[in-house]
C-alpha cells in the first residue's frame, strides 16, 4: 500500500477519536479526579513555633481508610500493606491522644488526615489550650508561667475540654469535610475499592485523596517576617502576614472636638478631668479550619451582651452629659484578635501608653490610663444565670459595683458573685492588668461549660439558639418583662442575655445617674435575637441592613467570618461591629437631609424606618496589629506582645481518584522507558540506512550552495 494512504488513514483515526472525546466534552483530568469540597487546617506561627498543618509542595496523596472505632488506628500504625494512607476520622476520635499517635508513630504511613462531619458520638471538641492565651496574660513573678490558670489540673482551667491541638504542628494536612454528600462520596469509594482483602492492597488500585494545602512560611514568625522583608528576595515572595484587623470603639456621649487642627504637636496630652467607664468584650473567635468557626458560645454571647448593654444604657441615661450626677462617659471597645494572645487589647494598651488613642485625625484629646475610672470586661458567658465578677484587687469601687449588680439582678434570675484573686479568666482585661496590676478592672465571666470552645462546632446549636424572627418589632425599643416573655421563653438564650445586660445597665445607671428607668422597661430580647441571627445564620439580615448606609449592598447570606485574619482580608466582623455600634449609640439629628448630613461624625444611615436618617455617631476603628510588628528590633522570644502570623499559601484543594498499585506504576514507567529506547534505536537504524530506504531522494544539504569561504 502507498505510504500516503497509510498516513491518511492514521490521521483519520486520530481525528475521529478527537471528535468522540469532544462530543463527551470531558477532559481527562475531570475523568480521573473528583474534587472534594471542605475546609483546611493551615499554618500559623508565633515567636517561637510553627503550628497547624501543611501538605507537601505538590500535594499529599493517601489511600482512604475509614476509622470507626479506636482499634482501627492499629491498622495504620502496624506496617499497613500499601502506604501512604489517609485516615477518615470522625470528630469523637479526633482526640489529642489519637492525633499525636498518628503524628509520632505513623509518620511514614500517613500523608493526609480527613476529618469527616459525623457528630453522632461527639461529646466535646475543643482544640484550644486548657489555659487559652497561657503565655500572654498575667504571669507569676519572674517566670513565664501563667498566674491566672491551673495548667496542671485541667478541671480547674478555663477550658477544661481543650486538647491544645491548635498549638501543635502536624507534618500532614488535615482537611475537614462538612458536607454530607461529600462524606458519602468518600465513604462509598472506600467501600467499593479499599474495604476488602486488605492484604491485597499492594497489588490493586485503591481509592485515594490528594490534598494540596502547601504553606510557604516555616520555623517561626521571626524567620518568615525576616524572609518576607529581605532586600535580596528577588521573587518578592511573602512568606507570612501578621494577624491584623481593627478594634471598634464608641462612646456613650460625643467627646469634645478640639477647635483647631493647628495645635502644636507638643500639646498632645490627655485631659485629666475626662473620666471614662470602659466596657469591653472581644469580637473574634478561632478554629482549626479556614473560614469555619462561629464562636457562638465562646465569644458571641459576650459580644451580644455588650451590644445590648449599649442599647439599653443609651435609653436609661439622659440625653445630655451635663445631666449625669457623676460625670463619667462610657467608652465601649470591642477588641479584635483576642484569641491570639490579646492582639487588639495589647495594641490598645500600647496606644494608651503612647497617647495614640484615639488617632489625632479624630480631633479629640488622647486617652490615657488615668482617664479610665473602671473597666468592665465581658468574658465568656457559658452559664448565663451564674456570673462571677472577677477582680485582682478588691476595692471599694469593685465591691460597690458588684453589690449593685446583685441588687439589680434580683428580678432577673442571675447571681453575681465577686471573686477576688489572680485566678481571672483569659480576657482582654489581662492586657491592662499586665501593665498595671492595680488597674480597676472587673471581669464578668461564668464558670466554663463550653465543650466546643474555639471550634467548628461552637454554632447556633451549641448555644441552643432558634431565631424568633419578630420582624414587625422595633428592636431598639426597651420592653417590660411581660412583653418580652410573649416573644421568648424564660430559658431561651435571648432572655438570658437580656437579663445580664439589663442588670449591668441598671447598675451602671444607678452609679452614674442615681436612678433607674422611669418605667419598668428593660433590655430588648428582640435585639439579642437579631444580633445572634446576623452573626450565626446570615449577614443578610435586617439589623445589618438598617445599620448600613442607604442603598448599600446587603450582607452575604451566610454568617460573617469572625477570625481576625490578615490585612487585605474582608474583615466582615469589624465592619458590621462598626455599623451596629453606630446605629445603637448614635443620636438622630432632626431636620437634616442627606446632603446636609456630614462631615463625620454625622452619618447618613438607613435606620429602622428604611428611609435614611442623619445620625450623630461616636464610633470609630483602631488598628489591631500587635506592637511586636511596630517595635524595631523587637525580641520575638520575649513573650511581651503577640507575635502571631499566618502563612501564605497558593491554594487549598482536595480531590479523590483511583491510585494505581505500585506494580502498575512500575510497569507503566518501564514500558515508557522501553519505548523510548526502541525509538532511539529505530531512528539510528533508519538514519544509518537512509540511502537504502530513501533511494534516489536528494539530500537536504544538496539544496544549499557550498559556502564560498571554504
Amino acid at each position, binding site marked *: 500500500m502507498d505510504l500516503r494512504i497509510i498516513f491518511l488513514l492514521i490521521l483519520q483515526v486520530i481525528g475521529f477519536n478527537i471528535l468522540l472525546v469532544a462530543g463527551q466534552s470531558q477532559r481527562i483530568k475531570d475523568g480521573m479526579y473528583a474534587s472534594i469540597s471542605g475546609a483546611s487546617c493551615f499554618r500559623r506561627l508565633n515567636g517561637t513555633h510553627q503550628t497547624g498543618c501543611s501538605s507537601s509542595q505538590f500535594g499529599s496523596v493517601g489511600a482512604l481508610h475509614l476509622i470507626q472505632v479506636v482499634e482501627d488506628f492499629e491498622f495504620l500504625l502496624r506496617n499497613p500493606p500499601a502506604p501512604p494512607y489517609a485516615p477518615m476520622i470522625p470528630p469523637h476520635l479526633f482526640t489529642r491522644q489519637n492525633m499525636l499517635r498518628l503524628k509520632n508513630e505513623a509518620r511514614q504511613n500517613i500523608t493526609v488526615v480527613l476529618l469527616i462531619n459525623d457528630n453522632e458520638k461527639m461529646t466535646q471538641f475543643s482544640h484550644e489550650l486548657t489555659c487559652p492565651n497561657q503565655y500572654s496574660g498575667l504571669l507569676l513573678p519572674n517566670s513565664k508561667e501563667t498566674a491566672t490558670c491551673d495548667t496542671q489540673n485541667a478541671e480547674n482551667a478555663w477550658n477544661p475540654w481543650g486538647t491544645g491541638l491548635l498549638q501543635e504542628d502536624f507534618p500532614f494536612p488535615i482537611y475537614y469535610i462538612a458536607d454530607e454528600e461529600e462524606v458519602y462520596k468518600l465513604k462509598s469509594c472506600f467501600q467499593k475499592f479499599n474495604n476488602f482483602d486488605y492484604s491485597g492492597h499492594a497489588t490493586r488500585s485503591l481509592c485515594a485523596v490528594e490534598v494540596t494545602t502547601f504553606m510557604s512560611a516555616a520555623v517561626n514568625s521571626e524567620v518568615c517576617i525576616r524572609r518576607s522583608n529581605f532586600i535580596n528576595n528577588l521573587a518578592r515572595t511573602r*512568606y507570612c502576614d501578621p494577624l491584623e484587623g481593627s478594634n471598634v470603639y464608641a462612646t456613650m456621649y460625643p467627646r469634645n472636638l478640639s477647635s483647631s487642627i493647628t495645635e502644636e504637636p507638643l500639646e498632645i496630652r490627655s485631659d485629666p478631668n475626662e473620666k471614662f467607664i470602659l466596657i469591653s468584650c472581644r469580637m473574634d473567635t478561632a478554629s482549626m479550619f479556614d473560614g469555619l468557626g462561629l464562636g457562638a458560645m465562646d465569644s458571641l454571647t459576650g459580644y451580644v451582651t455588650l451590644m445590648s448593654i449599649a442599647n439599653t444604657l443609651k435609653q436609661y441615661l439622659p440625653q445630655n452629659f451635663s445631666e449625669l450626677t457623676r460625670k463619667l462617659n462610657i467608652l465601649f471597645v470591642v477588641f479584635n484578635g483576642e484569641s491570639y494572645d490579646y492582639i487588639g487589647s495589647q495594641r490598645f494598651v500600647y496606644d494608651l501608653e503612647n497617647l495614640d488613642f484615639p488617632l489625632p485625625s479624630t480631633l479629640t484629646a488622647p486617652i490615657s490610663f488615668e482617664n479610665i475610672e473602671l473597666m468592665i470586661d465581658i468574658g465568656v458567658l457559658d452559664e448565663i444565670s451564674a456570673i462571677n465578677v472577677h477582680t485582682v484587687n478588691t476595692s471599694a469601687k469593685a465591691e460597690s459595683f458588684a453589690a449593685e449588680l446583685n441588687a439589680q439582678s434580683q428580678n432577673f434570675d442571675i447571681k453575681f458573685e465577686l471573686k477576688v484573686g489572680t485566678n481571672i479568666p483569659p480576657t482582654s482585661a489581662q492586657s491592662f492588668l499586665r501593665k498595671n496590676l492595680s488597674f480597676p478592672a472587673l471581669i464578668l465571666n461564668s464558670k466554663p461549660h463550653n465543650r466546643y470552645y474555639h471550634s467548628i462546632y461552637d454554632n447556633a446549636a451549641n448555644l441552643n439558639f432558634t431565631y424568633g424572627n419578630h420582624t414587625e418589632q422595633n428592636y431598639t425599643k426597651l420592653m417590660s418583662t411581660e412583653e418580652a416573655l410573649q416573644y421568648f421563653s424564660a430559658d431561651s438564650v435571648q432572655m438570658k442575655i437580656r437579663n445580664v445586660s439589663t442588670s449591668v445597665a441598671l447598675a451602671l445607671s444607678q452609679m452614674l445617674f442615681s436612678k433607674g428607668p422611669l418605667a419598668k422597661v428593660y433590655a430588648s430580647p428582640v435585639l439579642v435575637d437579631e444580633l445572634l441571627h446576623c452573626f450565626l445564620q446570615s449577614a443578610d439580615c435586617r439589623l445589618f441592613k438598617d445599620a448600613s448606609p442607604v442603598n448599600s449592598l446587603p450582607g452575604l447570606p451566610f454568617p460573617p467570618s469572625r477570625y481576625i485574619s490578615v490585612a487585605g482580608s474582608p474583615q466582615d466582623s469589624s465592619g458590621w461591629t462598626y455599623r451596629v455600634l453606630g446605629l445603637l449609640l448614635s443620636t438622630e439629628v432632626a431636620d437634616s437631609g442627606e446632603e446636609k448630613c456630614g462631615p463625620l461624625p454625622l452619618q447618613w444611615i438607613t435606620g429602622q424606618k428604611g428611609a435614611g436618617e442623619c445620625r450623630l455617631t461616636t464610633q470609630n476603628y483602631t488598628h489591631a496589629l500587635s506592637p511586636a510588628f511596630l517595635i524595631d528590633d523587637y525580641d520575638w522570644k520575649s513573650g511581651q506582645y503577640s507575635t502571631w502570623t499566618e502563612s501564605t499559601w497558593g491554594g487549598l484543594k482536595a480531590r479523590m481518584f483511583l491510585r494505581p498499585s505500585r506494580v502498575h506504576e512500575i510497569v507503566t514507567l518501564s514500558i515508557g522507558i522501553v519505548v523510548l529506547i526502541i525509538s532511539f534505536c529505530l531512528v539510528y537504524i533508519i538514519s544509518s540506512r537512509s540511502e537504502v530506504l530513501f533511494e534516489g531522494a536528494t539530500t537536504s544539504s544538496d539544496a544549499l550552495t557550498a559556502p564560498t569561504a571554504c
Partner: protein
Amino acid sequence: MDISKVTNEKKLQLCRTYFIAGLAFLPFLWTINVFWFFNDAFRAPAFPEQKRIKKFVISSLIGALIWSVILITWIIIFQTKRAEWGEMADRMSFIIPLGIA
C-alpha cells in the same frame, strides 16, 4: 565557530585568551577550554603551537578541577548547614525555599 577550520596560530591565541579570562574566577570557561582544545593538544599530529596549547589546556584542567572541588565542598556544607545557620544563611541566599526551615 568550527575550530577545525582555524589556523594553528589562531588556535593558540584563542586557547590562551580563554585561559587568561578564566583567571577572573570563571572555572566554566576553563572547562570549555579543556573540551575545545583537548583534541589539538593531545590527539592531533604534532604542530609547532601544540606544546603551548597543551600547557594551557592542562592548566585550565587543573584550575577547573580545583574549582569544582571547592564548589562541591561549599555546596555540600551550605546545603546541610543552611537551616542551622539561620539568619546568616538567609542573607546569603537569593532564593529561599518555601515551607521549610
